[in-house]
């Protein structure tokens, strides 16, 4: 009687696989790069990247095979709980309503503008655009925009943060 059984699974490329591949490559890179560090500086990076590579390798292999216990009277385990992710095609209008798209998009725009013109000016613009997109009332738009200016301004005055300048301004 076999202690364990190994079954092949069909390979599925999904978000988790991409994540694991990315982490696996990061671990490999980190481990190889650590060879260039001398003077005891390589020990910890090798240790941590080694664990990362080993664990991600095992998880990636599990995407191809399923390992289960080999007891004869054991109930049949589910073959695969990694259902292939369904691709959902969004229309532009639907995408505009999806926070998972709009929040990252506005965030990138906020940071990009902040880098160019200074966070002190980009923040109220971000607050205004976000409140327009989420259809806030007119007074809430004003309040959020004012907060978006007041907070960075306070940080400039109290903490001497240099956020009133950007690459362009």
């Amino acid at each position, binding site marked *: 009687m076999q*202690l364990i059984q190994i079954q092949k699974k069909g390979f599925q490329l999904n978000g988790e696989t991409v994540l*694991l591949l990315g982490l696996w490559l990061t671990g490999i890179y980190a481990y190889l790069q650590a060879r260039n*560090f001398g003077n005891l*500086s390589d020990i910890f*990076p090798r240790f941590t990247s080694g664990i990362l590579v080993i664990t991600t390798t095992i998880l990636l292999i599990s995407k191809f095979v399923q390992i289960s216990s080999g007891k004869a009277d054991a109930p049949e385990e589910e073959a695969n709980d990694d259902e292939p992710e369904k691709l959902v095609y969004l229309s532009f209008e639907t995408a505009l309503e999806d926070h998972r798209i709009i929040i990252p998009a506005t*965030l990138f725009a906020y940071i990009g503008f902040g880098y160019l013109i200074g966070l002190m000016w980009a923040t109220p613009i971000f607050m205004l655009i976000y409140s327009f997109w989420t259809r806030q009332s007119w007074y809430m738009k004003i309040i*959020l925009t004012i907060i978006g200016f007041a907070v960075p301004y306070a940080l400039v005055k109290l903490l001497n943060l240099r956020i009133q300048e950007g690459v362009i301004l």
Partner: protein
Amino acid sequence: MINDLLEAIGMMDPVIIGFIIVGVLIGAVFGAIPGLGGVVAMSLILPMTIYLEGFQAIVILVAIYSGAMYGACISAILLKVPGSAAAAASIFDGYPLTQQGMAKDALGIGAFSSALGGLFSIVLLMVLAPYMYDVVLMFGSPHVFLLAMLGIAMIAVIARQGSTLKGLVAGSLGLLVTTVGIAPGSPTPRYTFDLIHLWDGLSLIAIVLGIFAIGEMIRLGAKGTIVEPGTDANSGSVLNGIKVSVNSSVTLIKSSLIGMIMGAIPGAGASSSNFIAYTEEVRSSKNPESYGKGNPAGLVAAESANNATVAGSLIPLLSFGIPGSAATAIVLSAFLIHGISPGPALFNDDVSFTFAILVALFISNLVILFVGLLLVTRIGARIVAIDINVIIPLIIMFAILGSYAARQNWIDIVTVVLFGFLSYWMVTYGYSVIGFVLGVVLGEIAEINLRTSLLVSDDLSIFYSDMLSAFLLASVLIVLLAEPAITAFWQLCDYLGIDVKERMKNI
């Protein structure tokens, strides 16, 4: 000792009490705002303390420190955004309570546990003050390394709630992230891609804000509400929160001890202590799977530990003049500005001065109790009822500005965004964010002390040669191996068809 204590209490005049109240309030507000925290508040107040007497200056700074430790849990509980890394573990059970419409309970637990954790550690410190000098001297680099290893071993414990392998992926990634930058004790730049902005490594607060703030805001936007649909955000009871905390008194005392010990170790800090206390609570519980879903004991453990850290951190500061964190470094600055020298005398000849600081800290925790239970709980529950489309941009703003405020380094803003997306991705596929953050928090401490230990001794026996290090090493091995060994044993017996329990009955 009694005379010294009475003399210390006699120093508590109305002006000092006023400074304590103001300090706690300032600390709580700054602590609750993600990215700011107690250090920023203390930095702002320090120049103004030049005009005060030495004792007044130290009292207000310590009160801010204590208030900020408590304040960080407010945003952690209500919005899943820790005010500082010291409250990151409070999210795991505090936020689910809010989602279940029990924000008042959670805030009540946070205030009560913070205050009681702080009070317990202060009383203990007063009793043990004459002996603490020798205890602190016992902890060298190998011991601190093994303590960090113990914390890292807890990753495996936490990860067992889900997938162990996924937990180890997350934990090892967290550890790897801490290796970016100039290596400790060596001029070797690691993984900096020739960018000078990466020489200081990645900011812990930026990582924490990214993981919890940005990631959570994306999830919150998709979900539409903080509180579960059909749940009343204003339900719950502060009194219930107090009762729960009292019922978890063993957890509270244990976690306070952990916090105090971790606080006494320079460099360990509150961000480590609340995680260690939380993971220890999970490990020792009979229902570990209930944690992370709104188990009040988890919140009690995290909050009592981080406030107890404040008292613990005063030990190396007052004994040796060694600040263990940025906050205590600011307190040390106040000492030096006012011509007060920390050292053994503060625990011998001038022990009444030390007791006065502890009494002030004691009163700070009473103020936290009062403010937390009567004020914050009333306001806090209303916050979660606010439209999330108002909360989301505010949190994003504070996360971006807060991360930049620490070092004025644009890499920190990139860090917040990248780790925010990584967090969303990881949580979607069941990777332990707790494990990741634990790795980030403990990685630097582990590496610095490993390196120092290996420089002191080429022989690895430094990690088991004395009683303390042998005990710590044994603890690490037990945490890592005991449960898998026991599980493997039962599985083997099951496979071989041996009923161990039946055989034990027949013996």
